[in-house]
């Protein structure tokens, strides 16, 4: 028998705030987390815009020998996961004595690779790279570090699905729980912010050039959008079988009812309409609900011309004459890439529990396709019980999650 999957913990460390309360307030206020980073200009970037959050100082929480294996994004993941586990009421003793799984999104670890190779070239001696280089450089760095620090004993796997990584992590985790293979899975995604991680992305002219006004640069669905703004941080969602949550007496935050996925099988960077459409339809089918029950759509929309256009077409095709509010929280955060699928579930859940939909800031003029959607440019008060969250990535990987308020 298929089991119900509930969310019992959330944690966030993003350019909108360093915990759930701060992020909720930023969503409410329509605050932008985007800055101009002059270092990028000196390095030869076309666009020096980026989301920004401090790298956390974990000296008090973790030993030197734990921190030395952690690159920037693993530190973000650690802070988000610590908050999520606390939120879920999961102690280290519990984690150590149960098979709790870990599926976490990540799709790069550029800075440690650059630093290691630089050191080797300079010194001509690989020993001098140090012990952290290898563990920081591997794509599975988040799951390696989190599983050791938090003593996790279930599935231990990094999900690399480009900008849909975090969403796929939650989706795959929900399937493991649904099918009875795991009772609890710590899911999420984190994204490095350092310039090395995105220089090649900048090189293909993917980023907004609106450097004179950073807060206005990320403008999903707006007619005058001119590219995405890279960003990062960490986001963790603890998902659990309903039986396990009840047995533990855990507070149930929400329920994951649908996971849809698809591949475009098309161009490596240019998204199409059919792939995303199939992902949305599958999620709705899997959730077993009528699409009219979905009160809010958190779009993937990154502020690129074709991406937003094709997503708008896909959403319009799926929802037809029904027009739920659609926004992209990337208007505030920029594109949190490997983390985005997880962070956007958290942003949407915070809105769902606080009866509002954050503004799609900078949405001043629609284009032909976004005009067909219901996109609020200002925050609105709205009670809704169910939301759909889209995440799409390079290579045409698509993931859609549907989350609802928990009802017995």
């Amino acid at each position: 028998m298929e089991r119900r999957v509930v969310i019992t913990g959330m944690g966030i460390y993003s350019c909108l705030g360093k915990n759930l309360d701060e992020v909720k307030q930023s969503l409410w206020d329509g605050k932008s987390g985007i800055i101009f980073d002059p270092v990028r200009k000196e390095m030869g970037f076309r666009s020096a815009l980026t989301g920004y959050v401090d790298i956390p100082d974990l000296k008090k929480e973790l030993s030197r020998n734990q921190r030395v294996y952690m690159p920037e994004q693993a530190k973000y993941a650690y802070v988000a996961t610590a908050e999520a586990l606390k939120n879920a009421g999961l102690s280290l003793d519990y984690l150590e004595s149960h098979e709790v799984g870990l599926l976490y999104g990540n799709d790069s670890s550029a800075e440690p690779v650059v630093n290691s190779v630089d050191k080797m070239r300079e010194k001509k001696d690989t020993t001098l790279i140090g012990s952290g280089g290898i563990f920081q450089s591997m794509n599975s760095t988040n799951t390696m570090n989190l599983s050791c620090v938090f003593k996790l004993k279930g599935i231990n796997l990094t999900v690399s699905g480009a900008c849909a990584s975090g969403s796929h992590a939650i989706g795959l985790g929900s399937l493991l729980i649904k099918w009875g293979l795991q009772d609890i899975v710590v899911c999420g995604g984190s994204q490095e912010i350092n310039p090395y991680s995105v220089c090649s992305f900048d090189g293909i002219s993917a980023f907004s050039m609106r450097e004179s006004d950073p807060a206005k640069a990320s403008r999903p669905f707006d007619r005058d959008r001119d590219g995405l703004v890279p960003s990062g941080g960490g986001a963790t969602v603890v998902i659990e079988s309903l039986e396990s949550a009840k047995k533990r007496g855990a507070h149930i935050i929400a329920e994951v009812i649908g996971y849809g996925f698809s591949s475009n099988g098309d161009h490596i960077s240019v998204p199409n309409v059919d792939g995303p459409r199939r992902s949305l339809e599958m999620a709705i089918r899997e959730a077993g609900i009528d699409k009219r029950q979905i009160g809010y759509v958190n779009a993937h929309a990154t502020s690129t011309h074709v991406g937003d256009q094709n997503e708008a077409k896909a959403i319009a095709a799926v929802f037809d004459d029904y027009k739920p509010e659609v926004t992209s929280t990337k208007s505030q955060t920029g594109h949190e890439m490997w983390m985005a699928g997880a962070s956007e579930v958290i942003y949407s859940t915070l809105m769902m529990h606080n009866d509002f939909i954050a503004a799609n800031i900078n949405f001043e003029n629609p284009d032909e396709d976004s005009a067909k959607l219901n996109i609020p440019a200002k925050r609105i008060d709205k009670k809704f019980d169910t939301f759909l969250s889209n995440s799409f990535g390079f290579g045409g990987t698509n993931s859609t999650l549907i989350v609802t308020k928990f009802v017995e």
Partner: protein
Amino acid sequence: MSKEEIIERVVALLSEEFEVEADVITPEANIKKTLELDSLSLVDLVAAIDGEFGIKTNGQEMNQVQTFAELYDFIEKKQA
């Protein structure tokens, strides 16, 4: 470089790198126990000594050095 200077610099370097109090780094103390080194972090000791003193060494050689007094002698000898 005098022995005193070597000692002073090693204590400052290793207490910072391995986050231990400077006063636990005594000549007779065991390096691995004091700095909580395992086979992985021994590599960081090699890198730290190279970075500070420009001494070429390796994990195997460093593995032979048991106490801080031996480390000071080792650096002094390598610099000679």
